[in-house]
Structures are given as C-alpha cells and as structure tokens.
C-alpha cells in the first residue's frame, strides 16, 4: 500500500502536492465564503486552455538546453501581427483565426531563426539575453504599433495616429475555440474545443519530441558533448527548438486572445514570459528538464491559484489587490527558487 502511494506521489512531487492541497483549500474556502464556485471553476478551466500553449512553448527551449525561453515575447509579437493582419484582411470567425495563425507561423519562424542565431552566440547567458531581447522587441514594437500602416478602424485609434492599446475581437474570432461544442454539466461549462486544441498542440510537441530530430534535441540539451560525439549538430538543434518555441508563442497568444476577447498591444506582452516560466516551474519542471505533464499540471495549478485566490483574497482582505501581489510573489519566487536549484554554486 505504502509503495503504491509512493509510486503515485513520486512523479508529482511533494511541493506539487502541497500546491494541489492549497488549491483545494482555496476552493473549499471559496465555497464557505459563499462565492460562486462553479464560476470559479469555469474561469479556471478556460484560463488553463488559454495559457497552456504559451507554457508549452517553454518545453522545447528547456529541453534543448537553452533554458526557460524568457524571450517568448518575440513569438507573441509575431502572433499579434498575424492577428492584426487577419483583421485588416477583414476575415471573420474561424477563418480569421486560421488566417492569423497562417500568417504568424512563418513570421515566427523567421523571427525564431534570428533569435536562435543570437542565442547560439551567447551560450550560457540565454536567460538574461533572452529577457532583454524580449523587452527590446516589445518596446521596439511599441514604436511600430504607432507607425504601422493599418487602416482598419477596429485597429486604429479613431483620431490621431497609431493602433489602439486593446483591440476587441468581438466581431472577429472572440471565443472561437471556447464556444463550440462546449459541454454543460450542471452549472459547469467545459470549453471542449479549447481543450482539444490545447491537447492537440501538446500531442504535436510530444510527437516531435519522439522523432529523430526531437530526440537529438533532447540529447543536445542534456549533454552537448555527448551530442557532438554522436554526430549531432548542437547549434542546429538549438535553432530548431528556438523556432518551435517562438512559433508556439505566436499560436499561444492567438489562443489567449480569442479567449480573452482582445488583442493587447504596446507593453502588454512585456512580462508575459515570466508567468509562462513560473507556470511550468510550478508544474515540476526545472531549468534543464520539462515534460508535457509539467505543462498541463503547472498551468492548471498556477492559473488555479490566480483565479481562485483573487476572489477569496478579496473576501478575506477586502482592501487593495492582495491576489495581484500574491501573484507577483509566487511567480517570481518560483523562478528564483528554480534558479538557485539550477546551481552553478561552486
């Protein structure tokens, strides 16, 4: 019996169990605070689906030895451009989403390639350089949003120049994945398509990780000397992983936006990388190892903490935005913890 329990606990890990327990406790607390638990759960599920792909984008980067991809805004920006172009082309519904994805994927491939070239030149400092590449790209795009020649009135400010800070997708592909085939069980809604899409992306990444190229990529990440001795090209494999990660970032933001209902331009993508990194770390990943399981568990836990903690905290401490502060503490605390674990302490 004991052995069985241990076998069950081991892959999840004690810290995870504590967080799961805490999350459960939050739900119980929510129930006693007379909060609408079903709404919380609905929100929780949606947030998992909408953030999951951004978290998934961390997997190839971590496995190829680059570490958590702090430069994911590079991909996010590509996704935003794709989305804006699809609106500019006046696409609606599923069409708009597909067009947005089709435009942003090649964009992200090119951007990811360039980013990969850079990362190959700064081995050992990828996290720091990635962070600032992300920041730089976002602030550069701030200028671009001001001067890009979009004409659609949904995108532009009605007066003056430049694009809106938030662009509503209500007429375009708002909830395009959330709504169809949603299953209602009592008061709980399961966004079927959103999950199908998320799990499909997970499956694609899993397939890749078990292909010849994917296995090579993991070998490169785990032991580059071994990889070289087995005739693999380290730089090329890191490049593939960077491109994959960037493309996933682009798709990730589109999924995020369709669920959120808006595109957020300007400085909104600036700190998105940290939330994604924190999520996968909470799921049990480290800066050198990550699995699809870590992505799903991590997104579930991290988003759960955010969604449920917010109203509960507001009931307990009605003043101020305690949950936002807690998010900051948890998010950066977990990253900091992972960094100290990664060591280099000698």
């Amino acid at each position: 019996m004991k052995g069985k329990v241990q076998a069950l606990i081991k892959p999840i890990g004690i810290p995870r169990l504590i967080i799961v327990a805490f999350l459960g406790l939050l739900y119980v607390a929510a129930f006693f605070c007379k909060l609408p638990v079903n709404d919380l759960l609905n929100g929780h599920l949606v947030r998992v689906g909408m953030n999951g792909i951004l978290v998934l984008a961390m997997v190839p980067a971590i496995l190829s030895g680059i570490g958590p991809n702090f430069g994911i805004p590079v991909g996010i920006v590509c996704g935003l451009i794709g989305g804006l172009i699809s609106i500019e082309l006046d696409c609606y519904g599923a069409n708009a989403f597909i067009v947005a994805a089709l435009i942003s994927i090649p964009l992200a491939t090119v951007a990811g390639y360039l980013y990969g070239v850079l990362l190959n030149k700064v081995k050992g400092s990828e996290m720091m350089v990635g962070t600032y590449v992300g920041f730089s790209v976002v602030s550069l795009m701030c200028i671009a949003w001001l001067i890009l020649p979009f004409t659609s009135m949904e995108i532009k400010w009605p007066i003056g120049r430049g694009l809106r800070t938030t662009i509503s997708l209500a007429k375009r592909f708002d909830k395009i994945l959330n709504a169809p085939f949603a299953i209602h069980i009592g008061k709980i809604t399961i966004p079927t398509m959103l999950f199908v899409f998320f799990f499909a992306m997970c499956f694609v990444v899993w397939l890749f990780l078990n292909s010849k190229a994917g296995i090579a990529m993991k070998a490169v990440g785990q032991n580059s000397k071994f990889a070289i001795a087995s005739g693999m090209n380290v730089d090329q494999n890191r490049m593939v992983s960077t491109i994959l990660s960037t493309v996933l970032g682009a798709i990730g933001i589109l999924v995020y936006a369709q669920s959120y209902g808006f595109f957020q331009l300007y400085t909104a993508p600036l700190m998105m990388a940290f939330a994604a990194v924190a999520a996968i770390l909470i799921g049990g990943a480290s800066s050198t190892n990550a699995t699809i399981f870590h992505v799903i568990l991590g997104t579930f836990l991290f988003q759960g903490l955010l969604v449920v903690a917010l109203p509960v905290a507001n009931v307990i401490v009605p003043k101020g935005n305690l949950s936002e502060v807690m998010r900051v503490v948890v998010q950066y605390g977990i990253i900091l913890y992972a960094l100290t674990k990664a060591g280099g302490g000698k």
Partner: protein
Amino acid sequence: MESKYILEMKNIKKDYFGNKVLKGINLKVEKGEIYALLGENGAGKSTLMNILFGMPVIHSTGGFEGEVCINGEKVNINSPQKAMELGIGMVHQEFMLIPGFNITENIKLNRETLKSNIFSKVLGESLKTLDTKDMEKDARVALDKLDMNIDEWARVAGLPVGYMQFIEIAREIDKLNVRVLVFDEPTAVLTESEADNLLDAMKKITDSGISIIFITHRLDEVMKVSNNITILRDGEMAATLKKEETNVMQLAELMVGRKIEGLTQKEESKEISSNQEIVLKTKNLRVGMPGEEVKGIDLEIYKGEIFGFGGLAGQGKIGIANGIMGLYPAIGEVYIENKLLKLESPIDALKNKLAFVSEDRRGVGLLLDESIDLNIAMTAMQVNDKFIYKFGFFTHKDSKGIRKHANEMIEKFDIRCTGPHQLTRRLSGGNQQKVCLARAITLEPNVLLVSEPTRGIDIGAKKLVLDVLKKLNAEFGMTIIITSSELGELRSICDRIAIITEGKLEGILRPGDSDVDFGLMMSGDYKKATRKEAN
C-alpha cells in the same frame, strides 16, 4: 636540536575506501637538496603530496597512517593553511596566476603588504591600504633571486609561458618562511631552453637553503639536478637511490616494472607485415585538445589488429582518438581505408564506420538522465537511421526495437541493471562502461576506438570489457584501437603499442619488448638514450 632532514615522511599509508593507494612510503629530504619523485600516473605521487599539503580530500576520506616530521619534529598538517605556515610551498602545474593583474599583485596574491589608515582603525583590517611600494620591493627581491629582469609592474597577460612559471616560483620564495618547495611537473609546459633556465633557478633556490621536491617524468632532468631519487610504483616504494648510483636505464625500468593484476602479457601477438592492408593512416595529425595536445603524428594501423596508445597523462595519447573522431580542433590528414577523413566532423567519422568509446564516460559517453536502451540506440539512430519509423517527412522512434536491442546487449555484456529502462546515472562505473561499449558496437563499426576502457571500474568488469574487445577482434575482425594509461593492460591485449610523449610518437613496441624500452619511451628518453648508444 637541528635535524639533518628538513622533511621526513615516515611509513605513510593511505587508502580510499579500502583501495590502498599508498603502502608505506618513506621520504627523507635534506636541507637544500633537490629530491626527485618519480612514478607513473596513479603511482601515488599526487596522493603523497596531498597528504603533505593537508588537502581536504585526504581528511574527508579518513586521513592517513604514518607521520610527517618537519625539522625532526612531528607535525599534524590538517589544512593547506597549516602546510603554508610550516613553510611548505607548491608550484602548481596549471598556473595560479591572474592574467589581468601585474606581476607584483600576483606574487603578493592575498599576502599583500598593508598599512593602516584612518578608516582601517575604525572599520578593521580589510580596509587597510595596500602598500604598493613595499610590495613591489619584495617582488623585485624575489624576481632577482631568479635572475628575472622583467618589470615587476608588468601585466601578466601576454607574458610567455616560461615567465609565468617563474612568477609562480617567485611567489613561493617570497613567502618568508618557505622551507620545502614542491615542483609538480614544472617543465611540462616549457621549451627546452626555458626548462634549462628553470633547472638553473632550482639549483639557485636550493643554494639559499630551501629544499625542493621535484616531481617529473623527464629522467634526464632528474639526472641533471637531483641529489636523491625515489621511485613510486603502485603506491609502493620501488626504490630510493642516490643520483651517483644510478642511470636513466635503471630509472626507466624501475618506473614501469611489471604489474600483477590477473592480466598476463599477450602470449603471441599477430605477425604484422608491412604489406598488410592499412585501415587507418594519419599524416602529421595535430589535435588541440587542452591538456592532451597532439603535435604531429604519423601512423599506420593495419586491418584486424589491436593497436594500443600508451604514455603518461598529459602527453597527448588521449588526444589522438578524440582528434580522429572530430571532437577537438585538428589539422593534418587522416585516411580511413585510403579515403581522406573530414576532420572536426564527428558525423563524417561515424559515417566512415568508426566508433568511439570516450575516456570521459560520464561527460561524453552517456546521457546520464536517459534510460539504458535509449543510450545504446541513440548514436545509431542519429547516424544510421536505425530504430526509427519513417512516414515521409516525419519520423518516430521505434520504442520496441530499441528495447529489444537493449535487452540483447544487456545479456551479451552482462550489464547489471533493473532493466533497459533504468537511468544510466544509477549504474556502477563498470556497467556504464558496458553501455558505452554497447552503444559503439550498435554502430557496427569497422574500427573501434576505445579510450581508457577500464579506468575506475572493478577487476571483474575490467576483465569482461577486455575480453569483449578481444572477442570483437577475433570473431568479426574488427580493428580495435585502445588508448590506456595502464601499460600492463595494453601489453595484455595489444598487437602493437605506440608510446606517445610530448604530443609525438616516441616509438612503437611489441608487448613482449623489455621494460627498459617501455620505461624510456614513456619518459621520453628513448630516443636520447638510443642516440647515445649509437655514438
């Protein structure tokens, strides 16, 4: 009471977890003499010196037996600081110099002369000002002792290697109380004339009353400067001799000796005639492997033989296989069956049916956090597209095939594990080595290069690994190239053995050749000695 001996080490014994590395060593160093310490790698020289320096590695593994006396008084050296206090200094083989600092700063590293100022009186020692003038004066004195007329405030970066060695020495003799200085292979990185300068300097240092323990493998240098010579072999004292009573030949023979380890010398090595088919040929191969640099090797290896590379550590024997496999920068030419091999390209080497078992098992040989089966299959998968399903552009790993193959290998090599899914990190050294071998053989190579196949594994596994190599050679006619620090091992299975010294080929011997020849070649004195005879 003044003792005749400045340093005595009496009946020193040391074991690492039951593995005896020193079996009763006695050293007696007189004041102002140069005392040479000779021995192969693993003979126990470094362990002995670690004891002398009170290194933590000794004390964290249960200390040692025997006693150390300085000036006739028994001392307990339990930390490097204590050793320094007692006046024992060390000239490191790899330079402990900071290139961005000037010579004075390096000589005075963490022993700076200080003078107090207002702040230091309040806030303590560490805010005392450096007394640059005084430091420079001291540095000048130390440099003058060594006849170095270089500016003491010149930056170290960019100085020739020979100078750096002298700065290192200057630092030690600047320590006021220094009585015994250990020189660990000081001439290894020097040119011949620089080495001569160094030997002169050593004599000068001893003139001032400091004793020197001179660790080296260059026998002619030993003969040139030392007074007494001790030879270690397998943790035992092979001999202690006075210089006047010995010669290079005897030293060489004593150093190599015969090892008893259940391995017997190969009875009959295959006849090699020059018209045999050449499977691998190198022309002026140079390899930039740090610490194992290869400086131009010409060799021909015949099809179906077991060929050995021997020599002391750091002489370059390890670099050859690594260079051929494309793991380090290399220039020159390598031919595989008369086809020119692309250098610095592991994939080309692998495609040409070479396979390599690295000396760095955990660093290069294994993915420690992957399973045994994937480790075995990995290289063949990447190089030969084995164990892969193909669907047009897409590929997927053949988990069943990988597992089946791994099970076969586990049986064949007797890999002790809980199953093919076990992580290689959890295997013992010997079993890890077997996984590495299995991975190489999965490539079905024509030539198998194996580096240090038995390093750090137990005797049973050792025998098995060597037997497998012999079997591969006998049954499949696979050419095998072994690089090993253990001469006995090479002599037990090789047909021919090349000895590498200072990055070059010293000579090729048969396993049955005499100990003297092996010893002279290992120390790099073979050519010199034979030249002398010819004259």
